[in-house]
């Protein structure tokens, strides 16, 4: 009877396609929206992940995310370096400053100050120039996207394309002269606006004078030193929060998860996909069953038990489920591949495939369930009704 169940389903082309479209839509929307959500959430801590050299980040205990800077006293750096188990500790400066453009426009830039001696915390990849060029006077390195967009120079002729900021160009950051010595590529992160890298002391000199200036201390544990233990003793010595890289990422993730509307927005999209998918697929599947009720009745009269009809309907829903899921996930992955080089966030981990399979499974079960109820309750006597 399995073949017959499949033929019943596939033979009704319009409904068959309708059910599959519904399930495809559901699995696509769930997978794609969740992937973008995960992609975005990963980006919230992208700047921390990219800074792979440090084991531990020391910060004010109220810091919730990367740009939530609460300056600390520079004296803490020496105290940190004195803690047993610390291989090295370097300061990191992070601030948002105004930058005056050649045409007089003012633009915010994300200023990153790297330890003068080691330049730890720099961008992951240089496009033009090298990180050590920061040792020159007034030097800065700008990220390629920022150089091409927000920091680009005006077009040479009216209506022409704007000119990307290039090595040798000079800009003014908070009224301080800064010369571009390199162009870098950063990981895509949640921080919008251009990324500017310079040395720690120059970054501090760019910014308005402050009593405290250090944003983070990046710490490397000695080989063999337990990182959680070191965090513990660093907390004791500095009176500050010391987080492993993983903990800091988690802290940021949680902040965006619990205190922004992002998860709700995407959650709504995912739930919508689920509901719309259930509505379309469930409705069409139910209609398909209703259309075939007379035939299910005839099968019952001819000796098909409820169990047999139940298996037929489950098989039918499993077939459309598999196809719809495959198509939906396939299209979502294709979408991910197509936008891989764009600014859009998209991350499709393997477990998301399970989640969306489960969702499609639930939709199919719901659809099949109401159909099965209808068929099980069906009186075979309907076969003789004109």
């Amino acid at each position, binding site marked *: 009877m399995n073949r017959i169940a499949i033929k019943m389903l596939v033979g009704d082309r319009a409904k068959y396609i309708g059910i599959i479209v519904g399930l495809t839509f559901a699995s696509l929307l769930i997978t794609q929206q969740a992937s973008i959500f995960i992609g975005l959430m990963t980006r919230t801590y992208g700047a921390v992940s990219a800074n792979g050299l440090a084991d531990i980040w020391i910060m004010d205990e109220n810091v919730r995310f990367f740009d939530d800077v609460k300056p600390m006293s520079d004296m803490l750096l020496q105290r940190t370096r004195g803690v047993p188990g610390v291989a090295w500790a370097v300061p990191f400066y992070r601030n948002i400053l105004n930058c005056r453009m050649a045409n007089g426009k003012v633009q915010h830039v994300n200023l990153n100050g790297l330890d003068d001696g080691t330049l730890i915390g720099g961008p992951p990849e240089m496009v033009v120039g090298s990180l050590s060029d920061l040792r020159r006077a007034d030097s800065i390195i700008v990220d390629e996207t920022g150089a091409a967009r927000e920091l680009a120079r005006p077009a040479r002729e009216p209506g022409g394309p704007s000119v990307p900021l290039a090595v040798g160009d000079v800009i003014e950051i908070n009224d301080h002269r800064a010369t571009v010595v390199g162009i870098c590529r950063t990981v895509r992160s949640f921080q919008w606006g251009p990324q500017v890298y310079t040395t720690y002391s120059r970054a501090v000199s760019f910014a308005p004078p402050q009593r405290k200036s250090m944003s983070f201390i990046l710490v490397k544990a000695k080989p063999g030193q337990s990182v959680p233990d070191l965090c513990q003793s660093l907390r004791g010595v500095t009176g500050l929060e010391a987080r492993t890289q993983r903990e800091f990422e988690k802290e940021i993730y949680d902040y965006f998860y619990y205190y922004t509307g992002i998860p709700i927005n995407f959650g709504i999209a995912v739930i919508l996909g689920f509901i719309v998918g259930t509505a379309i697929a469930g409705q069409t599947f139910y209609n398909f069953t209703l259309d075939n009720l007379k035939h299910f009745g005839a099968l019952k009269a001819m000796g098909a038990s409820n169990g047999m009809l139940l298996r037929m309907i489950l098989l039918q829903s499993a077939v459309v489920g598999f196809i719809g899921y495959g198509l939906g996930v396939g299209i979502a992955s294709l979408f991910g591949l197509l936008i891989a080089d764009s600014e859009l966030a998209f991350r499709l981990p393997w477990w998301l495939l399970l989640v969306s399979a489960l969702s499609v499974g639930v939709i199919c079960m719901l659809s099949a369930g109401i159909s099965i109820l209808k068929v099980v309750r069906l*009186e075979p006597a309907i076969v003789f009704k*004109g």
Partner: protein
Amino acid sequence: MDPAPVPAPIERPHEDEIDIAVHCSDVMKAYGAGNTRVLALRGVDLNVRTGEMLMLVGPSGCGKTTLISVIAGILDQDAGECLVFGEDFRRMRTRDKTHWRGRNIGFVFQSFNLLPTLTAVENVAVPLLIQHQPRAMAMARASALLERVGLKERLRSLPSQLSGGQQQRVAIARALVHGPRLIVCDEPTSALDHETGSSVMGLLREIARGENRALVIVTHDARIFPYADRLAQMDDGRIKSISAGQGAAPPQGTHP
């Protein structure tokens, strides 16, 4: 191989029950409740013998379909006794009743009720597949029967590619394929023109009516009355009279 199915021999517990395929006594059935209650069967007494083609005739709404549904085991009566080959459906569990029905009863419906997405031969094989017979064997038997009903060339046709008369022939083949002992037909000719209806009745007489098999046909189509062995006249939920039919002598010139 003989393509005509041979029904299983009937158990014969008592000599006086020897020929009785269906035995109904004082069968009652009502639909609905309260003000909308309709008494469809008001005490039906009827015996159907094996080997005979009995026609149940009467005006629309007199209870023919209800009675045939009770006889076929797809509807429970409220009172009275209905035994089919000595079996009382009310004593069976639903599951057993369904299986028994699948093995022993063949159905022919007014609107054919063929599965539209299955070919003729697949449709005919359905009763065997329901009983978990091997597909190859089911298809072979179905093909043989379709040949018997004159549709050798149309095995792979879909119902929509067949005429009404051809579809009803497929339905007859389907009703016979598993060798049932009782075949019930509700208005088998009412969707067909006269000539086609006659040929379908001829076919039913010729290949469906077997020595150990009974046929109960509901109709209000007077033109097919001559095919019956006996005619049971129904009115208002009762059998009014039973008369002998012409039994196989089709009206002159209409049987192909």
